[in-house]
């Protein structure tokens, strides 16, 4: 093909595109004008930063379903301050750089009132500074200790899910007294895993135990057996937490490595979120323990609130989608989206939020929240919000694998999860 014959149509295509672009711009203009004139009836726009692709995709799918269900419930109850709520969803690709771009899009392009969503700690740490610069309230559902550690800013809050530091602190007494004192930790080699490494090792030492080996695994790793020979022979308990698309391989290869003579095993359910416990190769997990943020299997003493939450999101009593029993939810984390959206609603209502000019009033209103009762809005359990550190505290569950299901064996109290404040965000200016 000759080059001249190729270049001709591309010029006309380009000019055609230009014309189209001008047309589209002109068509869009009256829309903005209409919104500006009738601001009170305009919906409240919540930018939802979604892990639609990349290593966090299964979390993204369920965070999306949970958030849509929560918005539906809020709108059915009359919306916020008489205005409907609208989710504006953007894919962050589970990538910190893209995360910051998405936050910027929410603020400048989509004219969102607040940003909300994401789980993976490196995306939150990458996005939060941009949200602070843009003065956009950024509600994260991430578990990382980065909010309460003082690393971020006044615009970033975590009111719907507890952080790793409080979780592991509540787990350590159970591990030390029931499973053993010599622990080998296996964790992903990025911010979230480092929270586990730093705070669990400190917490287990406070219980008279010790971490005999720490094995850090890159989060994009796909093959794991080669790491396991580093597990010392004296290990009494394996403490594992893993993320990413290869979690099933990780847990399976751990079982294949030990064969019939495994030590005690305590894992964070993150290692098996969105994975069927009945997957072949996981039989060895029978009798092992998992931390759960919210019990995946409906328990005998299931609350009315949990029942309502499952129905609204479309999750059955085994934690799978009601439409597809193989589509397992990220049940231990996704309640955080539901609860965070309800906190945004509560904050906007108590501050009389009317538009972006009230963003700082919204943050002050959320900072003023303390007791959060167990309710339809907060189905995981009662919580206590610390306005100074922007972090919520709540119950933690330890479940034992019994006949292939997770049965809650211990519930940690809210007080078990407290630690001294490390920051006072309320002293920072807006």
């Amino acid at each position, binding site marked *: *093909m000759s080059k001249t014959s190729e270049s001709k149509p591309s010029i006309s295509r380009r000019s055609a595109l230009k014309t189209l672009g001008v047309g589209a711009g002109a068509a869009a203009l009256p829309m903005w004008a209409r919104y500006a004139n009738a601001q009170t009836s305009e919906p409240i726009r919540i930018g939802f930063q979604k892990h*639609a*692709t*990349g*290593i966090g*995709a*299964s979390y*993204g*799918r369920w965070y999306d379903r949970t958030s849509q269900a929560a918005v539906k419930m809020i709108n059915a109850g009359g919306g916020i301050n008489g205005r409907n709520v609208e989710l504006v969803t953007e894919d962050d690709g589970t990538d910190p750089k893209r995360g910051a771009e998405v936050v910027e899009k929410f603020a400048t392009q989509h004219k969102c009132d607040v940003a909300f969503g994401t789980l993976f700690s490196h995306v939150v740490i990458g996005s939060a500074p941009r949200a602070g610069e843009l003065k956009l309230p950024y509600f994260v559902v991430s578990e990382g200790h980065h909010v309460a550690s003082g690393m971020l800013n006044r615009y970033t809050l975590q009111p719907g899910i507890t952080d790793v530091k409080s979780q592991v602190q509540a787990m350590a007494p159970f591990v030390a007294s029931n499973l053993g004192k010599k622990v080998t930790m296996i964790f992903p080699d990025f911010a979230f895993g480092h929270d586990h490494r730093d705070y669990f090792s400190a917490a287990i030492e406070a219980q008279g135990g010790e971490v005999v080996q720490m094995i850090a695994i*890159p989060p*994009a*790793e*796909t*093959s794991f*057996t*080669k*790491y*396991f*020979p580093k*597990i010392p*022979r004296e290990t009494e308990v394996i403490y594992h937490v893993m993320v990413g*698309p*290869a979690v*099933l*391989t990780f847990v399976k290869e751990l079982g*294949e*490595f*030990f*064969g019939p*003579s495994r030590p005690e095993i305590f894992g964070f359910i993150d290692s098996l979120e*969105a994975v069927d416990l009945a*997957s*072949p*190769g996981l039989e060895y997990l029978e009798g092992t323990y998992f931390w759960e943020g919210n019990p995946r299997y409906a328990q005998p003493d299931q609350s009315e609130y949990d029942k309502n939450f499952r129905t609204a999101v479309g999750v059955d009593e085994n934690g799978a989608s009601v439409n597809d029993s193989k589509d397992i939810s990220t049940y231990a984390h996704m309640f955080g989206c539901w609860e965070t959206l309800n906190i945004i609603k509560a904050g906007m209502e108590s501050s009389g939020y009317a538009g972006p000019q009230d963003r700082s009033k919204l943050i002050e209103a959320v900072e003023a929240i303390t007791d959060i009762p167990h309710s339809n809005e907060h189905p995981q359990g009662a919580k206590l919000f610390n306005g100074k550190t922007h972090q919520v505290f709540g119950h933690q569950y330890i479940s034992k694998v019994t006949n292939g299901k997770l049965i809650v064996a211990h519930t940690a109290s809210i007080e078990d999860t407290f630690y001294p404040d490390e920051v006072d965000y309320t002293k920072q200016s807006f």
Partner: protein
Amino acid sequence: MDFGPYLMLATLEGAVLAAVLALMASGLSLVFGVMRVVNVAHGEFYMLGAVFAWWVTSFVGGGPALAFVAALIFAPLIVGALAVLADITILKRLEYDPERTIVATIGLLYIMQQVTLMTYGADARPVVPPFNARLALPWLEWADGGLQVFWPWGLSITSYKLFVIIAAVIVLLGLRLMMTRSRIGLLMRASQLDSETAQAFGIPVERVYALVFGIGAALAALAGVLIVPIQQAHYLMGGDALLLSFIVVIIGGLGSLGGTIVAALLIGLSDGIISVFFSPTLAKIIATILVALVLVFRPQGLFGGRAR
């Protein structure tokens, strides 16, 4: 773990990686050797193999073994057919121009990856292995003045991993036989040596090229089918595999099948052993340095012939 059993475990893990790499890289090397096309989309054919394996096994009943055999047959065939189609519709029209085919295969990479994302989704999905018994391995040690057998903790392999190694060896032997003993192998070698003369002698070079591209992709897909019961099928799994295949092919010499296999063993085993004893990052650093050294001191690769 003691040094001896530790080394043995590392070697076994490395051998599984080497087997998969050898299959994949020999496909890449074959395509480059015969067609002089650097196929950047090769990793995606590997990914498609794994994805189609999941797809076939979830639609075929009759137990995991039967479903897996079906995947082993159909997934490489489907992927091979797709590759032939890509060759006829895209690469042929670019007249196999080296620069333009690189750009075209980059485009193919994104098309395949995004179509997989849009249809199959972003999840990692497992395939049940046809068999997966854990085989504990014994070790010998000197005790009480004689050799004694004992069973170290953790020293084991699964029967499926052994199967991957054996299957790769058989396929590679078959490939070697095809290239040296069969008529189609002769046509391929003739097209590789001098495509214009081959055409003058009545060899349908374009059809040979389409077939070679298909076989190359099918080899990658086969590697994908073999790995998917160990790992899961995921739309991004092609990236690392492509990088490792390029490392293997550059060290072994582009176009040299024997060199590719030796290099796959070298990279696979060193990755297994170095990452067990030191760190996985160090294993990757060493492999990359090795590539740089080979490119500087022996650009044709360890086993490559002279440049044509």
